């Protein structure tokens, strides 16, 4: 007990990393053998993590040296200057290399929105896909060729909702399509964000406005596209035909109270749903589940689209969209040895470490190229590497700014209210618009 800070470079990761990442990869990637590297398991829960880092950094603790940070809340840390500015600390060639190699959205959530400087290093990305039970689909008359098509060219929500409803009809499972629409941060950042995006909606207009300038961007939650996406979600559950599109009832009412563990419990754990939206981790889970016979029966495709890209004006919206999740590595400015810390950090970008991260803990590389090359061989992701690459390319980040945590809260509260019919969609969005504007104007 006592100071675990010692002299090693400590990376605060999670349990999975701490237990499964082979440290040797760092040395293979050229880190001096002199440097001890330790990976500790920080809090698993993302909110707890952020709280823990707030206090660690506030306190000027020297350990951990490197912190694995959710791209959903890294920018506030950057804005306040709580973590080290990598562009100031590291040579620009390396910075440029990282920026060029990595998923763009990941880089943007690691950068200071005012200056564009990269303050954190992308670590691994995550994005949701649509996962479904091939066996049930087969029983309903679908075949591998359908699956292959979907894997790169997902159906629209009109089609997909009807398909799921049809398959559900013919199966003996309780649920059709399960997804996460609880009133929680994941709704604002991800599941609603991507649904809205595929219909061409956004919180603050253009994707260029995602990371600011706060106060100088429009609040666009009252747009038709946003309302349409809410109605689509309601139609999926209630089938009332509120949306202009023809969406078939295909999801249980429970989803309005569900988050990730509930859905994977229903879909993977209990094998009790036809299809599910979820992050890559469930692919690995299904892999180990006999119901999916070693993954053979798991179908994965990019998220269905609402409107095609051509139908929407805004750049980057429409078509298939996945919410950009993922993790970044920030450097503790109070570290005892900045040089060693940066040496370790630099190695993270190497293929060796990325491969080790994929092999051990099972996280995808943050470089699209490596996703295709490395994931192709991965036992779980191998079959879906193409799909994953497409999803990664079409990822949309949440609008992270220092006020986002507060805005996010307003978003999920209002959206969930609208979903459940506690408020009409337009009333909810009007309230939301006011709340978001107030926060913008702080």
């Amino acid at each position, binding site marked *: *007990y*006592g*100071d*675990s800070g010692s002299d090693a470079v400590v990376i*605060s990761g*999670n*349990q*999975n990393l701490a237990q499964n990442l082979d440290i040797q990869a760092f040395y293979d990637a050229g880190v001096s053998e002199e440097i001890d590297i330790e990976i*500790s*398991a*920080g*809090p*698993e*829960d*993302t909110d*707890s993590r952020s*709280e*823990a880092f707030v*206090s660690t950094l*506030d*306190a*000027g*603790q020297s*350990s951990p040296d490197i912190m694995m940070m959710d791209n959903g809340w890294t920018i506030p840390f950057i804005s306040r200057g709580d973590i080290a500015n990598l562009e100031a600390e590291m040579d620009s060639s390396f910075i440029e290399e990282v920026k060029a190699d990595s998923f763009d959205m990941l880089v943007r959530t690691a950068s200071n929105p005012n200056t564009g400087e990269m303050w954190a290093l992308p670590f691994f990305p995550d994005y949701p896909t649509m996962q479904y039970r091939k066996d049930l689909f087969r029983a309903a008359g679908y075949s591998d060729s359908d699956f292959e098509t979907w894997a790169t060219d997902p159906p629209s929500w009109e089609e997909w909702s009807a398909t799921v409803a049809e398959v559900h009809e013919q199966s003996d499972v309780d649920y059709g399509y399960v997804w996460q629409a609880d009133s929680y941060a994941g709704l604002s950042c991800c599941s609603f964000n991507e649904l809205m995006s595929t219909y061409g909606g956004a919180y603050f207009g253009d994707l260029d406005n995602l990371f600011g300038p706060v106060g100088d961007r429009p609040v666009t939650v009252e747009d038709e596209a946003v309302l349409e996406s809410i109605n689509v979600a309601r139609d999926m559950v209630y089938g009332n035909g509120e949306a202009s599109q023809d969406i078939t009832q295909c999801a249980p009412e429970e989803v309005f109270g569900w988050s*990730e*563990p*509930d859905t*994977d*419990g*229903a879909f*993977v*754990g*209990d094998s*009790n749903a036809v299809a599910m939206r*979820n*992050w890559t*981790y*469930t692919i690995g*889970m299904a892999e180990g*589940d006999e119901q999916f016979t070693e993954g053979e029966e798991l179908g994965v495709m990019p998220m269905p689209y609402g409107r095609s890209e051509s139908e929407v004006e805004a750049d980057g919206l429409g078509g298939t969209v996945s919410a950009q999740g993922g993790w970044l590595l920030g450097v503790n400015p109070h570290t005892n040895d900045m040089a060693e810390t940066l040496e370790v950090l630099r190695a993270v970008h190497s293929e060796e470490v990325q491969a080790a991260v994929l092999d051990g803990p099972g996280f995808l590389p943050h470089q699209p190229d490596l996703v295709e090359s490395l994931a192709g061989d991965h036992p779980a992701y191998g079959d879906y590497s193409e799909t994953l690459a497409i999803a990664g390319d079409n990822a949309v980040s949440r609008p992270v700014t220092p006020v986002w945590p507060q805005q996010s809260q307003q978003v999920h509260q209002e959206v969930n209210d609208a979903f459940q019919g506690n408020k009409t969609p337009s009333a909810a969005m009007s309230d939301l618009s006011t709340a978001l504007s107030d926060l913008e104007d702080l």
Partner: protein
Amino acid sequence: MSQSTQPETDSTDTDTGGLFTNWVDSAIANPKKVYRAMFATVAIFFLFTTLFPLYWLTMIAFSDGSRVSEGVGLLPTGFDPSSFIEIFQQVPFHLYMFNSLVFATLTTIFVLLIASLAGYAFGRLQFRGKRPMMLAVLVISFFPPAAFFIPLFQLFNQQISFLGITPPELYSTPGGVVIPLSAVFLPLAIFILTTFYGQIPDGLEDAARIEGTTRLGALFRVIVPLSAPGVATAGILTFIAVYNEFFFSFLMTGAAAQDWAPIVDGIISYRSQFQVRYDLMAAASIVAVLPVATLVVIAQEKIVSGLTSGALKE
């Protein structure tokens, strides 16, 4: 003097009649029986409502982790007692428990000691400014713990000083948890002890002082033992609350067992961002409750009745 409390040892009816009508007849003849039956009913009701969730928790612990989401009824879904081993394999859960036990023990001792002195002053002495001072103590508990947190956190990390004094770095040490928690639980303990110490008849303290104790000696040799129900209660309440405390103990320590992380850290480590091992959490909490249950078994003996009976003639 007090034989009025008839031991209810034969709470199980030994009547062999068994028939309801028989029972009613005898109940009319002996109203005690009705009373006893009512007591038993109420007792069973309370036991059921308190124990049922715990029973169910146990069933979750015994369930197959991947099948909890199917629903758990009165019996485990699947049967997988290995959770009780797995909790130690995934993380050093025993170390988390050790940490929390250390916090709880130290805080309880510290709080009982300080609160005893204060409780004695408030409960048994007359002095100017008593009410305002008691109020000041009470007011502390009006604030959400978060209101204390940031300055303390900075203090314990040597970022700021208190009246020019910079304490040693207390972050991620037992001190960083025990000291703030002492302050948090002190008001309750002070009030409990004030109440109980105040009720001890003066005569007994007088007797002790005549026998040659100091005032302090009388407190610890007579007042405290005679207030055993109150002291034990304050102790149990503080111990358990600290053992399970999740705010300061969570934020004032790192997340790893080596960094003096408390039980809560251990338990929530079975919950990753997207996955919750309910069975492990259940198993861990059952294991974690064992030391507390043991403590309660021991300490409740101190909550014995009629401590002052036979002491005084008045």
